[in-house]
């Protein structure tokens, strides 16, 4: 009796501090946001009045919000897929026999360690139309100049290039950690069967790494659904609103224009949509990867 009581107390000592801190810092703000989203809090009349679901009715017709959401989804899915393919490819390249293996491994990891917003500022100088090296180097081979940050299509491309530069290392890290921990036997078996590198990859490596792949893609999709710092530093959402993502638009409405009530409604909507979309994507991914390999 005494012993089980003691164990119960110990259980709480381990879990409660972390849980309570997180609950206090996250749950209260979240509930508060829901309440604020039902108010008309803005720069002129700050305060918690009650206007019901008017903010939510307004956002249904807010083209700028839905366009930002569509743009974000496109950016997130495209960049994560590119990162996955490149990261997996690079991991395979430096997995085994290659000179200076450890040097390349360190080098390939570096971008994900660096501060995204600071590197975006450097990339902005690279993409500068007349003074930056991007157009200069392309000029040597007879291309350009391209309006990297001032036309909508190119600005999207610039943001996505920086995202790929920054986060391919994350995929690389996961896939390489997965490759390093693989058992040797399946590869020996494949070699004995006379399978070439391509068949070995599709019949052994890829299926064995399916769980790692799913995990890495999901984590990256979650992080990519929050893209805003690269946008802020590279284009400030411009030209016009052509590169605004959801998070950036909410930031503009809430913390720059101080339409706190409306921005809170946008936040809650964005959060719910992201959770639903990500859950669906996770289900599809699991079916796609596991379903085929079993």
């Amino acid at each position, binding site marked *: 009796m005494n012993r089980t009581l003691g164990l119960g107390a110990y259980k709480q000592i381990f879990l409660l501090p972390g849980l309570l801190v997180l609950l206090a810092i996250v749950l209260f703000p979240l509930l508060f946001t829901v309440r604020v989203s039902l108010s008309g809090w803005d720069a002129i009349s700050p305060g918690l009045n009650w206007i019901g679901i008017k903010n939510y009715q307004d956002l249904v017709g807010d083209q700028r919000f839905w366009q930002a959401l569509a743009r974000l989804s496109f950016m997130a899915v495209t960049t994560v897929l590119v990162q996955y393919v490149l990261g997996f490819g690079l991991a395979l390249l430096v997995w085994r026999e290659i000179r200076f293996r450890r040097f390349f491994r360190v080098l390939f990891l570096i971008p994900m360690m660096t501060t995204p917003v600071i590197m975006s500022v450097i990339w902005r100088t*690279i993409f500068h139309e007349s003074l930056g090296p991007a157009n200069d180097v392309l000029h040597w081979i007879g291309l350009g100049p391209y309006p990297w940050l001032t036309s909508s299509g190119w600005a999207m491309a610039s943001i996505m290039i920086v995202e790929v530069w920054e986060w391919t290392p994350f995929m690389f890290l996961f896939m390489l950690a997965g490759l390093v921990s693989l058992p040797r036997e399946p590869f020996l078996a494949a070699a004995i069967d006379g399978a070439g590198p391509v068949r070995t990859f599709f019949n052994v490596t890829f299926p064995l790494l399916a769980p790692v792949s799913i995990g890495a893609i999901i984590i990256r999709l979650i992080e990519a659904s929050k893209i805003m710092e690269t946008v802020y530093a590279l284009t400030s959402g411009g030209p016009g609103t052509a590169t605004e993502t959801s998070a950036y638009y909410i930031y503009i409405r809430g913390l720059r224009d101080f339409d706190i009530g409306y921005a809170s409604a946008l936040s809650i909507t964005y959060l719910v949509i992201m959770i639903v979309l990500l859950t669906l994507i996770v289900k599809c991914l699991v079916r796609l990867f596991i379903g085929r390999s079993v």
Partner: protein
Amino acid sequence: MTGNLYRILKYAAVVLWSVFVVTPFLWALTTSFKTINGVTGGATYIPWLQYKPSLDGWHNLFGGSSGIDIVHPYINSIIVTASASLISIVLGTLAAYGLSRFDYRVGIVKNGDLVFFFISQRIMPPVVLAIPFFLMLQWLHLLDTRLGLVLVYIVLLLPIAVWIMVDFFNNIPRQINEMAMLDGCTPLGAFVRVILPNSLPGIIVAGMFCLVFGWNDFFFAFTLTFTNVQLLPTAIVSLNSSVTPWWSLSAAALISVAPLVLVAFLVERFLSRGTLAGAIR
């Protein structure tokens, strides 16, 4: 023949990606030694040959003529990141250990749900939390203070710590606990004396990720502080105005990401020893 061709392609791919990776760093390095003349004439790369190098960009960071202060933001960044990481690691390790060893049940909520609750905080976009955090810190008089930022960063870092440590503890056999308990240790004693020393690699990996994600945050530092407590990313982005001093900007960027490059070396060491595989999966 095909073997040779394959090898050439392989090295070409690796070198090509390496060039892409180092481009912004090399560009920042060469830019940091330029003056206004070296920048406004178009892109130049090689000092002495194409432009006259100068140390102004670096001097300015330490209160030179144009007086951009990088020292205070640097100290702030170190204090805030280190404190938040330390708290997250302590709380996260305890919670993760509890979740991997004991059964919890509150109504329909069980261990798996609790782990998911911790990790799912990463789904929360910073912008959703920024508005309530802003009002909450204002109310607590913690806006524009280090303590306020530390509190906020725990939300970012605790999920990472729990996520890595739960997996790590799950890989340590339960028999170790039972043996320690038979020797007369309390559950807390078993944790401190037996489990902790064995989980140092996991704690280091989790700590590194906390440091990186804390150091690299921009959004909360940007929205929740103004002038008192400037962190590195905010200080550097504030240089990113229309008339940007590219040379100081580059120098500042380089010294703020420099410590993180060391982390890449550490991560690679763990990776090559296979420690990371257990921590990540």
